[in-house]
């Protein structure tokens, strides 16, 4: 092999090592995911909320983790559509906080309705009362036979009036949310 050939070979090896080093140092073998829609704080992730990012194709990722690993986990902060989301940025429990003068109500949520209600959804609690509240998070046990619950933040003066008629969650428009 000529000197030119040896130099070219050495350059290719150095380039390959450089790529390997960048990939290792930045953990680029982990697959990235992006939000397919706007995600609210404490939103419990469901199938279709995220998808593999397009740039994984140029990162030579090994294909892990699977998008299913995100299902049932909670988003730690609001995310706009298209923003990247890693498993480390989600949690197994919602990050709940109560505003002074408010109470947190845990309302029963049938599994059939869980697909339409999530953190940030506006709901009405009582068929007689038209007051609308925002869902802070939903909780669903692993057992699929068990019902889910919705965590709802309610101002203290509204507690009696809204809960008197029995809980009957109904989804409302976001503009009606308090």
């Amino acid at each position, binding site marked *: 092999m000529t000197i030119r050939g040896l130099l070219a070979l050495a350059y290719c090896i150095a380039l390959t090592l450089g790529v390997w080093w960048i990939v290792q140092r930045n953990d*680029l073998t982990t697959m990235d995911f992006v939000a397919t829609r706007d995600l609210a704080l404490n939103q419990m992730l469901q199938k279709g909320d995220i998808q593999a990012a397009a740039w994984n194709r140029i990162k030579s990722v090994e294909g892990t983790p699977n998008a299913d690993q995100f299902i049932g986990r909670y988003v730690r902060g609001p995310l706009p559509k298209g923003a990247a989301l890693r498993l480390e940025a989600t949690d197994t429990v919602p990050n709940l906080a109560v505003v002074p003068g408010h109470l947190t109500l845990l309302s029963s949520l049938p599994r059939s309705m869980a697909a339409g209600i999530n953190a940030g959804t506006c709901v009405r609690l009582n068929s007689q009362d038209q007051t609308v509240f925002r869902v802070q998070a939903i909780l669903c046990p692993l057992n699929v036979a068990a019902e889910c619950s919705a965590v709802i933040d309610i101002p203290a003066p509204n507690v009696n009036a809204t809960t008197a008629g029995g809980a009957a969650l109904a989804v409302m428009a976001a503009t009606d949310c308090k």
Partner: protein
Amino acid sequence: MAGIFGQIVTAFQGILTRAFWFGYFLPVAVFTALSLLLAQYAAIAGADTVLAEVASPTWTWAAPVFAALIVLAYALGPLVPLFRAILDGRRLPERVINQLRRYPQAMQDRARDQMNKAGDYLKDTNVLTLFARSQLSADRARGVTAATADQPALIVAAQTEVDRFLAELNGEPPIASMQAAVDAVGAALRVNSAVLVPILDALITGVLNGLDRVRNNAVALNERRLEIYNKLPPDVQPTEIGNARILSERYSWNAYGVKFEFIWPRVQMVIPENDPSAQRIEAARSLADFAVLTLVLSVLLMAIWLPLLALRGKSTVPFLALGIGGPLFVRFIYQLVVESQISLGEVARGVIDKFRFDVLKLLHIKPPATLSAEREIWAALSAVASGEVQTADIVWDQSPP
């Protein structure tokens, strides 16, 4: 701010030449811009902010940065001859020169072998063509005189040989194959010419046309090989740029017996400012300077930013883009340096042809009557300039200007 910037540009435009803007400033500006962009990918602190500032229409540092770039380009200008000397091998260590020279030396040896082979082939083809014409004429005459009986088998054999030879015309038919065709046609003519048939004429025409075509191809091949061989000077240099320079500068020595480095600076002094040659020189030199400086800065860019991108970068894309695209770009610019060197050499030849007598006039030396007298004058002047002992004095021209 835009007003100040405009004033600075106008002021510098008046002072500096177009060759400066194209040859020195443009490579420096592009190098700086690319470095800033790569600094962002290499996560250099503050690079994002600087880039955002630069892109902003209210960037207040535009004028000082522009002035700094001009100063930098101005400072790099005198180093371009040094860069060129390194690229053409003059300023390389002897060991490196010897190592690098092996490759063009091998190329030259190969080119010489191929040229010799082509020359031999052309010579053999010429001889065979001449021989075939006379031989076939003689065979035909002999056949007619002998008035022997027809031997169609020999005509068929000749036809087969001629067809085989004609089928080889797209390549380089071996001399033996051509000879075999000529011999076969000659044998057929010697015993069949008493009763001339059109097929014999066709055989003669076929073989002679084929030989002419082979000869023409051999001439073209010989010229091509000669051209390739002449692309390298006899004293082969370690780099392609060096060979281009030597070939360009050899002209003044071959034609007038004066070394390029002696006559070129003096010729440039006698060119009138409004002469088109001055503009041609400026254009060719600015292209050569641009190519040299761009090549050096491109190599520098890769040497600086590839390790930084590998060590600090967050993505493989800029690293790979620079790592793969960089060498291709450097090769392209290297070729541009070679071509611009050749182009400058061609301009220099014309300028030396046109203005060399003006140099003699400037030096108060009477224009020589013959080429050999001119060569003697240049040899004497060169010897004086290099401090050699003079055997004969130089006579000044006393006539009024």
